[in-house]
């Protein structure tokens, strides 16, 4: 029940965040987009057509009024406006493509967890050995590779030279592998480095010595006592990397020609199709906020000390008075 209340509270707190995000984006887009009516009609349109379109798009209203209308349409009708070029509803376009992007980002998260955490743990336990040195060096390489470059290299090696995997498109499991790696490997290196330092810190704690003093096997000491305690910073980084993976998907989808949200946004930027860009970025911002909420809930599962955050302010005050 307390958890439920907490989630509701956090979801409500997301509202101003999202509204603020939309406002900033709206102002930025307005500053760079030029005159939309001119963009849509091209140079050869008559003044009448032009005036009519401006009226239709509501471009004659003050900017805050337009912002208010935009937000109101989203809230009341789930309407993100229409594309300036195709006149199709943006909401439809986004929702159609979002699962692909979410899938790609999840693929990246999967790779980052499966590679990052085990290597980080092993590297910390074998500190100063060749295993550790190798892992740290690989980590350096991993974080230093930009994903647009890595994606192209992977295509050249695995698709063109070796011919093992398809280079572009999105039609089956095999198509997920290269983009997934491209999205995940950077983050895997970051997760690995965080895991390593967090585990190194925990491994020296007194309670780990207590566990050993109980006669516990080394393996269980590491998994049960060290890793569980080391998880908090790792979770934080994974949450942040999820945001980066969503952003990375924008680039990676373009490289691999994947019909996802990212490619949708990039194409729209090229054409200055403002409603699509805005709608897409707003959805990504909401996603990021939700992921952060999930991470905060996971904290509480991992660490009982974090569970006090579920108590409302009133209850805390009451307890403080009682004490």
């Amino acid at each position, binding site marked *: 029940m307390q958890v439920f209340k907490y989630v509701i509270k956090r979801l409500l707190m997301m509202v101003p965040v999202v509204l603020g995000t939309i406002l900033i984006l709206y102002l930025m887009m307005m500053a760079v987009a030029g005159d939309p009516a001119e963009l849509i009609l091209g140079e050869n349109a008559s003044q009448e057509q032009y005036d009519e379109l401006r009226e239709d798009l509501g471009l004659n209203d003050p900017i805050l009024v337009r912002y208010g209308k935009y937000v109101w349409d989203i809230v009341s009708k789930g309407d993100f406006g229409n594309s300036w070029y195709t006149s199709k509803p943006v909401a439809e376009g986004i929702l159609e493509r979002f699962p692909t992007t979410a899938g790609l980002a999840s693929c990246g998260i999967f790779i980052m967890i499966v590679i990052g955490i085990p290597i980080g743990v092993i590297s910390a336990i074998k500190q*100063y050995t060749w295993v550790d040195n190798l892992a740290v060096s690989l980590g350096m390489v991993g974080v230093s590779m930009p994903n647009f470059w890595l994606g192209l290299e992977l295509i050249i090696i695995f698709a063109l030279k070796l011919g093992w995997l398809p280079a572009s498109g999105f039609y089956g499991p095999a198509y997920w592998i290269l983009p997934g790696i491209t999205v995940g490997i950077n983050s895997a290196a970051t997760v690995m480095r965080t895991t390593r330092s967090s585990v190194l810190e925990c491994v*020296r*704690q*007194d*309670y780990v*010595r*207590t*566990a*050993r*003093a*109980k*006669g*516990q*096997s*080394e393996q269980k000491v590491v998994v049960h*006592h060290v890793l*569980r*305690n080391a998880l908090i910073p790792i979770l934080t980084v994974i949450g942040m990397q999820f945001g980066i993976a969503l952003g990375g998907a924008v680039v990676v989808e373009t490289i691999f020609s994947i019909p996802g949200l990212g490619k949708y946004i990039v194409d729209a930027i090229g054409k200055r199709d403002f409603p699509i860009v805005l709608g897409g970025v707003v959805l990504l911002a909401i996603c990021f906020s939700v992921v952060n909420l999930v991470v905060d809930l996971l904290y509480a599962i*991992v*660490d*009982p*000390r974090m569970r006090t955050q579920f108590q409302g302010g009133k209850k805390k005050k009451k307890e403080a008075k009682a004490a």
Partner: protein
Amino acid sequence: MEKELLKISDLTIQYSVENSVCQAVNHVDLKLNRGETLGLVGETGAGKTTIALGIMGLVPDPPGRIVGGTITFDGLDLVKATKKELREIRGKKISMIFQDPMTALNPIDKVGDQIREVIELHNKGMSKAEAAKKACDTLELVGIPAERYDEYPHQFSGGMKQRIVIAIALACNPELLLADEPTTALDVTIQAQVLELMNGLKRKLNTSMLLITHDLGVVAEMCEKVAIIYAGEIVEYGEAEHIYDRTAHPYTEGLFGSLPSVADERTRLTPIGGLMPDPMNLPKGCKFAPRCKKAAEACKEQPVPLVEIAPGHFCRCLFAEEKEGRYE
């Protein structure tokens, strides 16, 4: 005849730090009989905890390493024992109470489960419910209601946490208990409670105990034998009465001198001047010579042997024998 449970001979433990070697424990000999309590007294950094960790096989490696000597426990040399043998002994036959209760418990595990862990490890075949039941009993034993099984360490006070640490150490009725400053982190009233508790349990279970402390008051209350340790060396060793009434080593004298006394009307204490020598660079002769008021040239020339100055009373001082008359 009393039976010998633990015999440490010539134990040397070193920590290697970059290019220098820290000589934490140097040629230590100790003996402990069943049911007996030995006090290990010395100032911070003297190597007390390292000796206890050496017995547990838990000297952090790297940088620490047992360089030489033997630790014979119940006929088995713990230095040469395999990891598996050590794991079976740890927590069951030998267990350790750690110094700082605030950090010695896993913050994300229920306290009951932390006790249950050690019970399950050493009672293979015991069901989870039985182990939990036994963990509850152990909690009650140290005076914590069993209903608090499901709570986490942060929900307990320091004294209660220390009692939980003690409960973990006692859960499997160990033959030897290594208590590393069990009361240092506690205030005086709780300290008395905890000592009383340990004494009671010791009598009940006939456990031997190695009590590490720098509090001579605690030693007087708890121990039959005392070893005074300085810079990784035993400087005086014997029955508690010997140490208290016929102090032979100048360092031990210094320790007593720096204690406040209820009887005396002293307004200032007499501290031991100077600092412990750097364990990376120990003096060649007597380690205490640089701070000793009685030090002569002879003290600084070569290592001073540990000499039995009276039956069962050992002292590492060139001038100790002169005082032998005091036994007559």
